[in-house]
């Protein structure tokens, strides 16, 4: 109720196992009120929220938020407004996807997304440099983005209870690149100089969206046309993580090759070394 708004020193509010969830569950103006500036820990687990209540997105000082065991179907992109958030518990909901904006939380260390209906992880999540613990067990993941190997500070990762693919899957549908894409690729890979005044604004923007092909022998880029390929990071046969790679063409191969492929160039073996270092690190981090 609105009476709480005036409390200027309340840091922890535990309201779990209630029937909150309807409109007006949280008082309006929460973010601007004295309570909104002091609150550090908010636990709303075991309630009936069908969406993250917009009123709480203004809590810029909030460090810990739990909405476990509610009825959430998604996470709003404005979650990134919770700039101080370190701990986010969203387990036991009906969440189907993760917005890339979640990766904009600079202090996020502990992220729990277990027991949901998540089908894929956005690669941007690898930008969560302070992430130490990631709980993804009991979801609907079939693969992970290869960028997950970039989470160097990750200490715990739970993946059990996901239908992770165990066999190599080749995506056979490849849409050939458009002429615009081919022109864009040529400009980028041959470093054709251009100034913003040379091109219409939409093409300048298009050129800025080039993605680098992860194949170190390629050095190319792609825009919209890419090949999806699943490669496995193999932990000495004990556990295999399927990682999704986006490559610029079917002829390219990813750096995370399985051990059977022979490396013929220095650059390929360098990146395989990087990949195997990342794989060994990930092996220590994986929870069964």
């Amino acid at each position, binding site marked *: 109720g609105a009476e709480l708004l005036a409390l200027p020193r309340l840091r922890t509010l535990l309201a*779990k*196992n209630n029937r909150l969830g309807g409109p007006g569950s949280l008082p309006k103006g929460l973010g601007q009120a004295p309570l909104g500036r002091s609150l550090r820990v908010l636990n709303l*687990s*075991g309630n009936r929220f069908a969406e993250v209540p917009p009123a709480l997105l203004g809590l810029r000082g909030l460090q810990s938020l*739990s909405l*476990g*065991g509610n009825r959430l179907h998604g996470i709003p992109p404005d979650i990134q407004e919770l700039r101080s958030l370190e701990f986010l*518990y969203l*387990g*036991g909901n009906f969440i189907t996807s993760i917005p890339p904006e979640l990766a904009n939380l600079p202090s996020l260390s*502990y992220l*729990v997304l*277990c*027991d949901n209906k998540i089908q894929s992880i956005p690669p941007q999540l690898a930008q969560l440099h302070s992430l*130490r*613990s990631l*709980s993804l*067990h009991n979801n609907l993941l079939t693969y992970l983005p290869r960028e997950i190997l970039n989470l160097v500070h990750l*200490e*715990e990762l*739970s993946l*059990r*209870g996901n239908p*992770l693919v*165990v066999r190599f899957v080749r995506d056979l549908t490849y849409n050939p690149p458009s002429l615009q894409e081919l022109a864009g690729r040529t400009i980028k890979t041959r470093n054709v100089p251009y100034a913003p005044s040379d091109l219409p604004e939409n093409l300048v923007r298009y050129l800025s969206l080039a993605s680098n092909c992860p194949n170190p022998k390629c050095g190319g880029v792609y825009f919209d046309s890419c090949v999806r390929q699943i490669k496995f990071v193999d932990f000495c*046969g*004990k*556990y295999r993580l399927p990682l999704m790679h986006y490559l610029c063409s079917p002829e390219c191969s990813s750096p995370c090759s399985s051990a059977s492929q022979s490396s013929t160039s220095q650059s390929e073996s360098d990146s395989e070394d990087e990949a195997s270092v990342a794989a060994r690190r990930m092996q220590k981090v994986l*929870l*069964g």
Partner: protein
Amino acid sequence: FRYTRNLVDSGNGKFNLMILCWGEGHGSSIHDHTDSHCFMKILQGNLKETLFEWPEKKGNGEMTKKSERVLRENQCAYINDSIGLHRVENISHTESAVSLHLYSPPFDSCNTFDQRTGHKHKVKMTFYSKFGERTLCVSMGSLAKG
């Protein structure tokens, strides 16, 4: 960020008595018990225990679930290697759980199993605290001592 193992009594080398604290959503891997007797009592909250068959010698398939049950406050459970393997989890997203474990003889390593393949992996077990004192993060070797 994971469940903690807190040693209470080392029983003159004959047993280990410890308290495990499980946050919301925390669970263990599938593991064996290194030929020891294991008793467990729930002190607070609930824990789900899922029993598994031992995988085949060179097993390469999904492990077989034998049974599962939710243990309530004050309930006890027992397991040893001849009974099978198990996974213990706090499946609550709102309540933490606390359990008391007695292992005899004591052991500091066990095998964990990948549910999808049955592959096993030996791990050293560590204590978050011993006799009420937090164990410091030094090398794994000293942490493993029961």
